[in-house]
């Protein structure tokens, strides 16, 4: 866990006071709605369909048990007893009173949490691989660099009013689990031959209305220059990004309109002035930030610690759970455990206050008081001793958090959709549930194997439908909710070398009631065409192309008409 320094604490305490003042001025009529809007957005507060929604930042997805308890308390006292974890590793509360928000922020500040820059046209929460620091395939621990970027971007005086929102993701592993090619800036940390850290700098990725895969503008940027280079990119964007049309205001459009080479040239020219300036990083600073992270205290276990493998053979349910929800750890004797928030009885990413309290307790006992939020809207216990695996499993079953579906078809990423969000064209949650019900046989799910199915209620694509192997997008057809289906999206490079990609629409949109069966037909197409048990959905799709899938699915749709 990162522990705050004095400046960190002072900054968020002051921000609470500032927001309290802004809220009371708004309520007193001294600030107009138009003036208050950007101010509250910069502090994560939206006015939603039913009530204000507050998005709380969980920097790079790292949470302590104490922080989770505080979130539970807020859910209990100020909301309707639950919270919603998002794809950007944050948490949202959907049923708050505006007048209570300053008090909520004050409670958050006491446990080193805040809502700064979780919305608005500014640099948002930096996200990363949820296995950062523990992944066996890691080259560089991204957490330290994320924290550095958090500090640099927090209340940056120059970049608080950008043309549009700005998202940065960092990955330090061989497999990109942070979707770095789908962010305004993606950073992949690697080490040079001499062991020094550097970053591949990717710019202009993103989802939304105009999905784009980011482009590399620097293959290896030495770590000393990270902040000055970010500053150069942001300045070019701040000055040149379009402000006449909010749909064309993201950096990806600037990059597209200028062209990669001219854009790169503009950044490099700007950087010439900033290079080796005050933002040049020193080893001392990096060490100081590293020191602020508590080091997990790992034990050496005397007993043979993988007896759970025996149990795996005899208890099928446990075996399935280990296969899907338990992940390797760089330290011997330890694993990471995903808590699936994708059971069919709740909206993806939702957790009740009671569950949060219980998860905090489990984390205190078995995971060094640490929890992480994954961008697939699940939670992770990052440091679980193998010898406690069965106990943890049994406790998670009690809580309904042991669904063995991580990476499988029911592990759906979905936005809150039309049930909550005023932007949505269509609902996403009932559809997610209907699809989960269609595939509720866990054996069948395991047979289908790894697949990403993502649902967004509108083109803003908060449910990441563009990068689902199967993507579902809600569209409005004369007041009716229809869904467009895309195939072939991919969120990042994976172990099989498949790169990040945006899915393509495969045909006419589908009525809500027909979607689950349509998906089932796509899966049947895959099962009929896959070569061997291990070829995954996305691999079959890439090998045989989209046609067989279309045939299977639309043949049904025609019959239905």
């Amino acid at each position, binding site marked *: 866990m990162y522990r705050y*320094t004095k400046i960190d604490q002072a900054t968020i305490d*002051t921000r609470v006071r500032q927001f309290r003042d802004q809220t009371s001025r708004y309520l007193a009529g001294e600030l107009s709605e138009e003036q208050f809007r950007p101010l509250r957005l910069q502090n994560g507060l939206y006015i939603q369909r039913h009530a204000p929604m507050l998005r709380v930042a969980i920097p790079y997805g790292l949470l*302590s048990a104490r*922080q989770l308890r505080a979130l539970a308390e807020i859910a209990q006292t100020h909301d309707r007893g639950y919270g919603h974890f998002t794809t950007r590793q944050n948490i949202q509360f959907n049923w708050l009173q505006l007048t209570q928000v300053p008090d909520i922020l004050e409670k958050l500040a006491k446990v080193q949490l805040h809502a700064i820059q979780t919305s608005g*046209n500014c640099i948002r929460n930096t996200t990363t691989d949820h296995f950062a620091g523990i992944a066996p395939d890691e080259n560089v621990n991204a957490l330290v660099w994320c924290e550095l970027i958090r500090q640099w971007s927090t209340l940056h005086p120059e970049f608080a009013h950008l043309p549009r929102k700005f998202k940065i993701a960092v990955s330090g592993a061989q497999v990109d689990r942070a979707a770095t090619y789908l962010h305004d800036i993606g950073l992949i940390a690697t080490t040079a031959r001499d062991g020094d850290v550097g970053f591949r700098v990717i710019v202009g990725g993103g989802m939304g209305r105009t999905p784009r895969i980011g482009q590399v503008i620097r293959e290896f940027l030495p770590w000393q220059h990270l902040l000055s280079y970010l500053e150069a990119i942001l300045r070019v964007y*701040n000055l040149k990004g379009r402000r006449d049309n909010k749909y064309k205001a993201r950096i990806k459009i600037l990059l597209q309109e200028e062209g990669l080479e001219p854009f790169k040239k503009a950044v490099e020219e700007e950087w010439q002035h900033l290079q080796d300036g*005050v933002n040049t990083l020193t080893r001392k600073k990096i060490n100081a930030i590293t020191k602020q992270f508590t080091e997990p205290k790992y034990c050496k276990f005397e007993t043979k610690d993988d007896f759970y493998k025996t149990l795996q053979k005899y208890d099928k349910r446990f075996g399935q759970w280990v296969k899907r929800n338990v992940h390797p750890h760089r330290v011997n004797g330890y694993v990471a455990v995903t808590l699936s928030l994708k059971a069919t009885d709740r909206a993806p990413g939702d957790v009740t206050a009671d569950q949060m309290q219980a998860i905090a307790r489990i984390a205190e006992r078995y995971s060094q008081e640490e929890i992480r939020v994954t961008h697939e809207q699940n939670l992770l216990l990052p440091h679980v001793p193998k010898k406690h695996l069965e106990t943890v499993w049994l406790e998670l079953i009690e809580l309904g958090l042991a669904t063995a579906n991580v990476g499988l078809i029911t592990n759906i990423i979905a936005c809150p959709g039309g049930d909550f969000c005023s932007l949505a064209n269509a609902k996403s949650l009932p559809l997610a549930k209907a699809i989960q019900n269609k595939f509720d046989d866990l054996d069948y799910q395991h047979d289908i194997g790894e697949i990403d199915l993502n649902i967004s209620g509108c083109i803003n694509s908060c449910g990441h439908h563009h990068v689902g192997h199967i993507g579902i997008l809600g569209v409005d057809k004369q007041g009716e909710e229809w869904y467009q289906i895309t195939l072939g999206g991919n969120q990042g490079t994976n172990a099989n070398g498949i790169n990040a990609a945006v899915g393509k629409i495969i045909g006419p949109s589908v009525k809500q009631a027909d979607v689950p069966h349509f998906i089932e037909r796509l899966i049947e197409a895959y099962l009929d065409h896959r070569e061997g048990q291990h070829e995954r959905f996305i691999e079959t799709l890439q090998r045989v192309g989209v046609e067989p899938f279309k045939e299977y699915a639309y043949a049904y749709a025609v019959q239905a008409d």
Partner: protein
Amino acid sequence: MPTLFKLINGGLITKVDPTASNQDLNPQEQIQPHITLRTSDAVEACLSRLSQLKRISIEFLSFTDGRGYSMARLLRERYGYREELRATGDVLCDQIQALSRCGFDAFELPDGTRLTAVLTHLRMFQQNYQADTLQPTPWWLNVEQALPEQQDV
């Protein structure tokens, strides 16, 4: 009619007559060469005359138009402009600390803005992470800031 606030000697703010921006400054000041840039202009437009200018106003077309902040930093940090840099147009009290950190030292704020409110906003955050035109070194040159151990979360 906006009210003008000025930073004098790096800290003090003086409230000047509301009409000051055009009329009632002392005659010497009024004839001093000045220019107004809109946030849609490029700062490079005034570089040839920069050394003669005694005032540059940057007019914010909207308070959410962040270009003015980068323009100010460029003028101060890259082009070495030392005279008055005034934020005009749609400017909110809530922004003046960030504006001053980017190099603005005069602000035309909505009429009726109180001096105490401006001072509060100007000094809202005591410490800042980033280097800026007021604080030439970023926070990491003072790294021994850790909170005591019991503050762990």
